[in-house]
């Protein structure tokens, strides 16, 4: 039997906190070793309770903004091996990009409603504790559909299947997991990924945790353009 996953839960909402603890009691392989209700408590718990993984709300006291993301950044330095899954009510990709800014290994970004499916949540916690990444599919789908809507988007150079594969890569799935989901061989997935990364000019030999961030950043950039500083054409005269 595998050792149970040691989990620190940080959530300021009492109802949700109690609910998650109760849900996880049904799983022998997960043990909640500490709960925290704000940013400082979370950092203390991460120091003292020796967790394998942290499940944290994005928005907690003291500022009720992005404590979860900031805690994840801090923990990357103090506890590099510790996995962090951030639960969020925001489907905007910006926060996910912040979370993986310093690498996506051992990081997860899930919409809060995912806790309703406890099996999925526990699988994500395991994945992240083992150094993998999990990015909520709503976030990735939003990026992909926005990128595809852009006229002459570079995404249009990908085949339908390749776009599927890229989506799964951005969600943090391993080649094996993608192969299983799409019912193809590992080898086929590898070929697709090489082809995608060549077509999009992304470094194809990057390790798994790099390619998640690379894919997310790429997808994000497809929908946003920044001109060089200078005048904005057409708005100069008033």
């Amino acid at each position: 039997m595998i050792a149970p996953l040691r989990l620190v839960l940080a959530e300021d909402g009492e109802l949700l906190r109690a609910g998650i603890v109760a849900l996880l009691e049904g799983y022998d392989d997960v043990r909640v070793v500490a709960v925290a209700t704000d940013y400082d408590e979370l950092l203390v718990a991460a120091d003292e309770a020796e967790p394998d993984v942290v499940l944290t709300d994005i928005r907690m006291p003291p500022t009720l903004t992005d404590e979860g993301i900031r805690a994840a950044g801090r923990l990357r330095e103090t506890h590099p091996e510790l996995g962090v899954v951030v639960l969020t009510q925001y489907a905007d990709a910006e926060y996910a990009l912040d979370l993986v800014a310093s690498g996506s290994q051992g990081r997860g970004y899930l919409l809060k409603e995912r806790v309703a499916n406890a099996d999925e949540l526990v699988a994500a916690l395991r994945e992240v504790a083992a150094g993998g990444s999990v990015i909520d599919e709503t976030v990735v789908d939003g990026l992909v559909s926005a990128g595809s809507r852009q006229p002459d988007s570079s995404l249009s150079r990908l085949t339908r299947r390749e776009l599927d594969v890229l989506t799964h890569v951005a969600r943090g799935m391993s080649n094996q997991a993608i192969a299983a989901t799409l019912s193809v061989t590992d080898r086929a997935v590898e070929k697709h990924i090489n082809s995608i990364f060549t077509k999009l000019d992304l470094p194809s030999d990057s390790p798994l945790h790099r390619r998640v961030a690379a894919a997310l950043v790429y997808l994000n950039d497809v929908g946003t353009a920044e001109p060089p500083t200078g005048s904005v054409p057409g708005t100069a005269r008033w």
Partner: protein
Amino acid sequence: MVTWFHDGWERVEPRLRRFALIDAASLVFSTALLAVVYLLGPWYPDLQQILAVLVAASVVLIAGLALTPVLGEPGVTFSLLAAALVFAFGGVWFSPFLSPLAVLVVLIPLIVAYPYLGRRSLTAAVVVVLVSVTTVAALAEQRRMISEGFPMQVFSLAVSVLVVVIVIMVVIRQNYQELHDRAEQLRESRSQVANVADTARRSLERDLHDGAQQRLVGMSVLISLVRQLIDRGELDEARRALDDLGEQNLVAINELRELARGIYPQLLAERGLVVALAAAARRSTVPATVLAEPLERQSPEVESAVYFCILEALQNAAKHSGADQVEIRLHADPHLEFAVADTGRGFDPASVEPEGGLLGMEVRIRAAGGVLRVDSAPGQGTTIRGLFPGAADRPPVR
């Protein structure tokens, strides 16, 4: 030549233009009046001198105004000032009784043109006026001792006082009128802001009522159903009802998330305009691109006005324009400016009802201290532009 002057003249702010005209007219009028008295009357030499001063002042003013296309608003101001100085010095030289009036005449251009001068021109004008007023007063005291011709000086004083008082009255009346109009505009735009805010709140209330709340009520019915099913031992049915509950709950969560974002997007509060707009552009049903320079954070009022105005423009482009591409441009130097341009079918701005979304956008931008312009014509696409003049800039003259 005539159109050259006309174009330059048209660019000067109307109030300043009107004052320059009144000033020139009264100067020419009083010159003519004195000339008539001089020709009909006993040819007093004093009158001759004052007349020469008035003619000189008129020439200076008219010549200065003729150069308006080159010199612009500061040129108009300095022409007025120069004419006033000629009048003051000349008048006091020949008729020291005029000194209080001369001081007043030198002050008027400064009072009237104050809003139209930049910092440097204003400093220059203040220095000129200060020095001149002092000199005029001193000159008058010095000349008073050696002057003569008492009755004629009283006459010229009487004529000039009449003209100057009329000019001052007109100027003051205009300023009061202006203030009154501004106050009226302000009252109107405040009530428009309140109306727009009310409309937004009403639609929010509707969305909450018809959406999330209905769903939650439905879910509480389902919950009691589940309880009954469990009591009756119909566990399969109960499980199905629970699945249903779970789905309904997800939909409610999504609706609330969208509503919350519609009230005030967290990204806007935390990361500012560019990031929030990029996210909004991604969600837009018509492909939208954000072209923006890195931008400093603006005041919350300006940020939310710009954000929601652009959002509305984006939604309008998606709903009405048939455009296949929208471009959002954001620009911060020297003033915050934005433009939302679509490639759609466009419309005639005069034909849309003024109560619609365009008014809401305009009111929002104006309340935050900006101006909004809509450029559209059938077949031309639509461009919405907003501009926020800096506080140090000229006052919002419209």
